[in-house]
Every structure is written in structure tokens, then in C-alpha cells.
């Protein structure tokens, strides 16, 4: 398939995303549409194909200006001293567990713990090989048998969801420990093999709890963190435990558990006060920070569950820039990207990414969205004299 095979259309249309059965889907008047060639779907970790995680490509969108092609290891070059990078230190757990539902083999995806100790789960059935598909059956009142003499009682559907169920667990041990023992990483149809759980964990991840990888941080290696420190860019943590993605259903994001520590809130407020930029590593960081930030733009230390959906109409208050992956056509995450960077930046970047054969999904390439107007006194790094090139991949 060549670039000319790909069509990108963003003409206004009244079509809403999502299927009609999903009541939680919002109507999007003008979704970003493009065809994603299968060849651009990354199917294996770049450390296997390229030798390093930070060797993936990085497109930088400085507002509406022409995108710049770089590599993830160059991230610090595009940030200024005083800018603050916010990372999500949640670690991915192997959240897929085989189970038996009245004799039928199903796969349980553990998504999100609720305040009550109940869990949101997804039930899937296997298709050729180890891939799974959403299971359309009715599981209300069903008892599932899991390995290790564990059971799971399905109470009913999560209201307004076509995919998720509410379940009471009897695992005989804490959930994370149980999943480490019996679970496998959740993976979707475009990843043909099962990679070890470490492939789904960021270099800085230290608190197990995510069902799926907060994958924007994948190329942010120890070397990239060191280069940020050298440049005078701050790095500060928060935690948001991801639930199952809404990739297949085009549903709105589900509630997720998060925590913005007091020191992180303080540094974000101080960064804004000093006129510098707060750059989120991933959409999970945006969701947590925007939940914790009030209408005046002050970020508060908070924790709990968030069901915030960030749209262009809602806008962003805490985040100036975003490092993220490449999202599927019409994915709801694109709304968040548009809220951060504006529609024009995406209309430029996405066709360019398809043309230049960037790669999609959690093992794919990166995209740094920055505001048009640099807030630093000297202007952005990329506008200054180019640095000597670094030695390529190697080691």
C-alpha cells in the first residue's frame, strides 16, 4: 500500500462516532477521519526491531506550524529549561485471565477497581490463536471459575456500557498479586504474539495497577530522562491506573483511578507561574491533571476516580503540551488531542504521519504536540541552531 492509497477526509459531517447502542458516546460533529493502512500498525516492541525504545520516530507539531521529524531520544531538544514533564508511574499488570463460564471458555480482562471493592471487567471469547473478541453474551448472575480456585460473581452490566460488567471477586489474595501469578498482558488483534509484561511497562513505572500500558511513556527511557535533567527540564509523577481501552467500541473513556501528589500539584502551579510549559506524557496524565485542576487553572492534590472526558469544547487548563502515540481514526482520544493542540495541528500532522509512514499503537512512533507560541524567553529549542547529530541507534 502506498501513500496515495490513503485517504484523509476531515470535511464537516453530522455523523456521530460510536454505535447507537452506546449511550455514553458523545456526538462529535466533525471527527478526524483517515484510513490507517495495516502496514502502519506496529506489532512488536521497537527494542526488538530497532534495538532501543527511544529509537522510535517523533513528530513534533509546534502548534499549526510545519511538523518536524525527529526521534524520541531527541525529546529534550524540543523543550526549554523550566518546562515540566509529567509522567504516569502506574505499572501495567497482566490483566487478562482465562476463565470458565458454565463450561464455556472465556477471557476476563480486569479493568478497574471501584470504590466499593467491586471490579469492572470485560468478558471476551477467543478467536483463532490467542486473540480475543468482545463477547456479546449476557453474563448477569453468572459465576466464573478462574485458576487458583478463584471465583468471580457477575452482578450485572455496568450502566450504559455494552462491554463492561460489574463483578464481585473472590480471589483469595489481593488482586495485583493474583494477576501477577495467573494473568497475561492484555493484547489486541493487531499484536500477533504475546510479549512479556515488561514490554508493557515504562522505564519509570513503579505502582502496579494499569490494565493496559500508558504507552506514551514507552520511549521515555532512562537516557531520555537524563537528557531532560541535563537540559533543565523537570520531571514529576502522578498515578492513573488505566482501564481497558475503548479502541474497539468507540465508547467514551471509562472511569479510572488516579492520584495527583501534593508536590506534583505544587510544581505544576509554580511552572505556570514562571511562564513555562507543562508537558504531559500521555493522555492518562492529561486526564488526571485536568481532573485535579480548577477553572482558574490551579492544580490541586487530589485522588479518587475520574470520569472526565476532555473535548475541544471543554478545553484544557493544566496541560500546555502532550507527548502521545498515534491514535486510530475517530478514536475519542483525538478529541483530547484537539483540546490540547487545536484541530488544525491534527489536520496537518495525521496526513503527514501516514505519508511519512509513522507507526501506530503502543509499540509505534510518538507525537509531541506543543503550543504555537513558545512561552520561554529565547523561543523554542527547535528554532535555534541545530545541534550536532547524535550517533544512531547502537549499543
Amino acid at each position: 500500500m502506498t501513500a496515495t492509497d490513503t485517504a484523509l477526509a476531515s470535511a464537516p459531517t453530522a455523523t456521530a462516532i460510536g454505535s447507537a447502542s452506546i449511550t455514553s458516546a458523545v456526538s462529535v460533529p466533525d471527527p478526524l477521519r483517515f484510513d490507517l493502512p495495516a502496514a502502519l500498525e506496529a506489532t512488536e516492541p521497537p527494542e526488538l526491531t530497532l534495538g532501543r525504545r527511544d529509537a522510535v520516530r517523533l513528530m513534533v507539531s509546534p502548534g499549526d506550524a510545519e511538523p518536524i521529524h525527529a526521534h524520541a531520544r531527541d525529546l529534550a531538544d524540543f523543550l526549554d529549561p523550566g518546562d515540566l514533564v509529567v509522567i504516569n508511574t502506574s505499572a501495567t499488570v497482566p490483566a487478562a485471565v482465562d476463565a470458565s463460564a458454565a463450561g464455556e471458555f472465556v477471557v476476563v480482562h480486569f479493568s478497574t477497581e471501584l470504590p466499593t471493592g467491586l471490579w469492572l471487567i470485560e468478558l471476551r471469547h477467543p478467536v483463532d490463536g490467542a486473540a480475543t473478541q468482545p463477547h456479546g453474551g449476557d453474563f448477569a448472575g453468572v459465576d466464573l471459575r478462574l485458576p487458583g480456585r478463584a471465583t468471580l460473581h457477575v452482578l450485572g452490566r455496568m450502566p450504559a456500557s455494552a462491554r463492561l460488567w460489574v463483578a464481585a471477586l473472590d480471589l483469595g489474595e489481593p488482586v495485583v498479586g493474583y494477576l501477577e501469578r495467573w494473568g497475561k498482558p492484555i493484547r489486541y488483534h493487531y499484536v500477533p504474539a504475546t510479549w512479556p509484561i515488561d514490554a508493557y511497562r515504562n522505564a519509570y513505572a513503579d505502582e502496579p495497577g494499569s490494565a493496559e500500558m500508558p504507552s506514551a511513556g514507552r520511549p521515555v527511557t532512562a537516557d531520555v530522562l537524563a537528557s531532560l535533567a541535563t537540559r533543565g527540564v523537570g520531571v514529576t509523577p502522578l498515578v492513573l491506573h488505566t482501564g481497558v481501552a475503548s479502541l474497539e467500541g468507540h465508547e467514551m473513556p471509562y472511569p479510572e483511578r488516579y492520584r495527583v501528589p501534593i508536590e506534583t500539584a505544587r510544581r505544576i502551579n509554580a511552572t505556570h507561574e514562571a511562564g513555562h510549559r507543562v508537558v504531559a506524557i500521555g493522555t492518562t496524565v492529561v486526564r488526571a491533571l485536568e481532573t485535579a485542576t480548577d477553572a482558574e487553572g490551579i492544580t490541586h492534590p487530589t485522588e479518587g476516580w475520574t470520569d472526565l472526558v476532555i473535548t475541544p469544547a471543554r478545553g484544557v487548563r493544566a496541560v500546555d503540551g502532550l507527548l502521545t502515540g498515534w491514535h486510530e481514526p475517530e478514536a475519542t482520544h483525538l478529541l483530547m488531542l484537539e483540546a490540547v493542540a487545536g484541530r488544525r495541528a491534527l489536520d496537518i500532522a495525521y496526513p503527514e504521519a501516514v505519508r511519512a509512514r509513522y507507526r501506530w499503537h503502543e509499540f509505534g512512533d510518538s507525537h509531541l504536540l506543543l503550543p504555537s507560541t513558545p512561552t520561554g524567553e529565547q523561543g523554542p529549542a527547535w528554532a535555534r541552531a541545530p545541534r550536532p547529530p547524535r550517533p544512531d541507534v547502537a549499543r
Partner: protein
Amino acid sequence: MTAPAAQRTAIVTGASRGLGLALTTALVQQGWHVVVDGRDHHALAAAHASHPASVTTVPGDVTDPTHRAELIRAAGEPISLVVNNAGGLGPSPLPALADVDLDALTALFVTNVVAPLGLIQEALPYLTADAVIVDITSDAAVEAYEGWGAYGATKAALEHLGAVLAVEQPGRRILTIDPGDMRTKMHQEAFPGEDISDRPTPDAIVPAILTLIAGDHPSGRYRATAVLTEVGS
């Protein structure tokens, strides 16, 4: 650590299903933080699983004073709305007064009259200046329907408490709302075996209750269906 958004807090009792669930969901969509209760903690948690950030579930029985205190504590901040929705029907099928079990009648008064007043007493010190108290009643409180004597008497008593409270608390709005017949579990128990699918769902009644809460209607008794007509015209 406070929630960043200026969020109003409501307490809605009996919110595992029916009108309480529909009202809670609508309040969440309007940006409220809602503290809810119900006796079946699994049913309560499952019903509100979509909104863990906006709904605080406190399983328990409104007739338990400790549980009522827990509800107030869970609200944790000024309370803007209290909805006494939890209530009992008494024995089903509905017995004639000549046959009413007096212990069951006593228990029904505790559930439908003592518990709502208990929750109001507990909440009063924490209410905002513009707080609204809603008591959910029934036309059985004013009409003489065969078999509805016990239930009707408790609802009549609840209505009277609301009327006197409005006199004693002139700054507050105490709304006694008759939602009319609805397709709910309670209504089905009142008419066991009958087809009640011609009754409106609770979702159809909720807009009337929201209108009454948000508006400047003075304390008093309101029929939801009349409010819907008023809004529609």
C-alpha cells in the same frame, strides 16, 4: 484536599433502582456529587458503577440511626439537597386494614416516617442556605384506596411532617413530591402479577423533580405529572 470543581452535594436514599437510581443519574449528569444508599450493597454498587467519581455509595438501612449518620459523614461538605426516597410498601399483596399486622404497620411507620425525619434532623446543621429537602410521597396519602390504608397513613404522616417543617424552617424549601404511578419494583409489589408496563418509567418523572428542585417553587406538595404538564405547555 478538596475537589477542584465547585460541586453541590445531594443525598438520595433508596437509589439501587427505580426512581432513586434515575434521579441520581440525572443529578450526576448535572454535575452533582450524590451520596446514595440502599440495603443490598452489591445492587447499589453495580447500579452506580459508571460514576465512581460522582456517586458515593453507602450501603445500609435508613431505619438505622448509625447508617443515617454515615450518610451525612459521607457527604463530607455542605449539603444542598436531601431526597427521602427510600420507603416501604408493607406486606404484599396489600391487606385490608382489618387484617393489617400491627407489627408490620409499626415497622412501616419507622421506615416511611421516622427514618426520613431522622435523616433531616441529622442533615439540618450541614445544609447550605439554599438547600432543598424532598420527601417522596404518594397519592395514597390523600386518596382512600382499598388496601392502601397502612402505606397511605405513613405517607400522610410524612406529608404532615413536611408541612410543619416548612413552617418551622421558613428559610428552607421542603418539597413533598408525588411522582404518580411508575414502572418500579415497589409498584409491581403493590399489584403482584399484574402488567404495569403502561405506567411511565422513573426516567420520565425525573425531569419534573429536577424542575422543582432547581426552580423557586415554595414549600408544599407537588404532583410530578402536573409539573410535567406545566413545563410542556
